[in-house]
């Protein structure tokens, strides 16, 4: 299928803003912390007082993408913008809170994954096609492919692929899961702004001779060129956001050649191959230096 072109990318992680903030060795950098939190973005207004943290972070990620593009909200408002949301577990804290009756005030609708992109859509006036994928890195790669298809069909003029993961509220639950104890859980939110492009994009299982498992859980490998070996990186666990971290890292480098992203989650391994990622005439932008919304530590 025809590949989209990358217009902008906003990335917020518990390490800081943009891939440049990601350390070389997550475990060492975490220094014993089990969760690297993104905190709760502060927004004025009654509408946001009871909003979930995942909804606020989703909006902050889209605003970071707008900053990256040097564009205002009007550039994406309306029915010609598709919104594709992906998460593995951002809804868990809201579900948990509702089950336990904590706070007593969570709106039941806020437990639904669908409400996270809805908060973004309402705030920014995004009324185009939408979809929501649940899962880890393969779900994100599929979300990119889904966005590419919407653009290729002419169903939208631009597409936002939005991924959010939070962990802090349920750190104790994750701590009981032995599989995830090796790496810190790194909260993250990212938004990819895609427009129609000229390259080729495909998703599918990796070739038989390619290592199927690059590490525990949601680890992903990125290759700048087909000939380069895959390499895993000590980012920590960011579940669905991970491919977008590597994509940001890639564009901060040479951003040349074919981008390959391989993601693993549960039993599935998926590879995305994407040519001509950058729009012609565009050059990689520096990493966003500021989050769109100020954050306060929780």
């Amino acid at each position: 299928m025809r590949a989209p072109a990358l217009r902008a990318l906003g990335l917020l992680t518990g390490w800081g803003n943009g891939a440049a903030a990601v350390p070389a060795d997550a475990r060492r950098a975490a220094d014993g912390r089990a969760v690297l939190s993104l905190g709760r973005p502060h927004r004025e207004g009654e509408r946001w007082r009871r909003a979930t943290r995942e909804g606020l972070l989703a909006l902050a990620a889209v605003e970071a993408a707008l900053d990256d593009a040097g564009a205002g909200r009007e550039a994406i408002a309306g029915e010609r913008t598709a919104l594709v949301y992906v998460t593995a577990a951002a809804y868990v804290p809201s579900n948990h809170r509702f089950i336990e009756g904590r706070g007593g005030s969570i709106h039941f609708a806020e437990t639904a994954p669908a409400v996270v992109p809805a908060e973004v859509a309402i705030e920014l006036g995004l009324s185009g096609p939408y979809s929501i994928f649940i899962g880890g890195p393969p779900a994100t790669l599929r979300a990119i492919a889904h966005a590419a298809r919407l653009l290729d069909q002419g169903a939208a003029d631009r597409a936002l692929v939005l991924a959010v993961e939070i962990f802090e509220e349920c750190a104790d639950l994750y701590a009981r899961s032995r599989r995830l104890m090796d790496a810190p859980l790194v909260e993250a939110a990212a938004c990819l702004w895609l427009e129609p492009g000229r390259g080729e994009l495909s998703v599918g299982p990796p070739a038989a001779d390619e290592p199927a498992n690059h590490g525990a859980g949601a680890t992903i490998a990125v290759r700048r060129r087909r000939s380069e070996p895959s390499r895993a990186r000590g980012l920590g666990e960011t579940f669905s956001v991970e491919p977008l971290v590597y994509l940001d890292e890639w564009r901060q480098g040479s951003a040349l050649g074919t981008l390959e992203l391989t993601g693993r989650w549960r039993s599935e391994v998926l590879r995305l191959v994407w040519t001509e990622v950058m729009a012609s005439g565009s050059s990689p932008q520096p990493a966003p230096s500021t989050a769109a919304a100020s954050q306060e530590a929780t």
Partner: protein
Amino acid sequence: MTRAPRTERIAIELAGVVTPIGQDLEAFWSALVTGASGISQIERFPVSDLRVGRGGEIKKLARIKSWGRVPECRATRLLVSAADEILAHGGLDAVAPDRLAVVVGTALGGVEEGEKALAGDRRRRRRDALYDAPGHNLARWLGCRGPVITVSTACASGATAMAVGADLLRTGEADAVVAGGYDVLCRFVMRGFNALRALAHDDVRPFDRRRSGILLGEAAALVVLRRDGEGTGARLGTLLGYGSASDASHISAPDPAGLGLERAVRAALLEAGVGADRIDFVSAHGTGTPLNDPIEAAVIRRVLGGRADSVPVNSIKPGLGHTMGAAAVLEALMCLLASSRGVIPPTLHLDEPDAGCELDHVRGSARPARPRLCLSTSLGFGGSNAALVLEGAS
């Protein structure tokens, strides 16, 4: 009006369902046509503290006698029960495991597992509480080694799953897709809708003057999708088009003007290459809430134009309850069966159509008709709107 379709037609070959009104496709269809109701007092978990304790509960999963290594997760077991009907018809016999995909839609995933684990039930696996767990459990049970995808566009999830499954066929990622939706009736969701005061105190009455809300139900519904012209030759019908649009209006209430739903419907018609003047039947979301029904009726009226008074419309939620992630798939199957069997099931409990909800409602009893092209609409939390355009096999 006929236009060139934007995408390849996708065959819907077989289906398997488990619902409160029947645990296979034939039983489900018979109950729809005869107007049977699956609404009862909920027995599986405590409801005495809730204002409403009724719903479309499946009292006993009857298809499978031995669960073997299938997890104790009810959502998984609903899916496996539905898939068992497909396997019983040999629907996947010739499909290589790595060319088979599973795509399921859900509003709640495995949340009941989380609910039970937090209550101290040590048999529950916390990872089964993630929304994509039941889909992966189903894939494992089927021996599927191709793509496994979970989508969650709230109560429009089933429609989204069918569309994403169709895309896997169009891009060549799979040769057959088991696509569908599911959700379980559990305390989590009952408490939620109870808090929203959205549950009906008596019957669910879509489009009726006395409508007071929804009742929830549980179900799983799966279909086997294939590229047109491939597969076994069995066919329930064809998926022609899908459209989605966000309301960008409110997190839990529909857009008062229904603009998002209208965009979704028009996008589905465009993808199908079908003009609204060719639609023979509309399966409405028809929840029976005071807000939803007049908005939806107005959208149907705008889309159908002058034919709005002569195109039959129904809602099957009164007898099933709102089955959330399964709803759109069950409604799509109802459309296809109506086409092949030559009869449209009625909307139960629709006695006095409300002012503002006037359409050609099928009510009282089933109506003889053989609709070929059908439109099915879905709405959900977050301003999720989806529409399917389907062609019956008649």
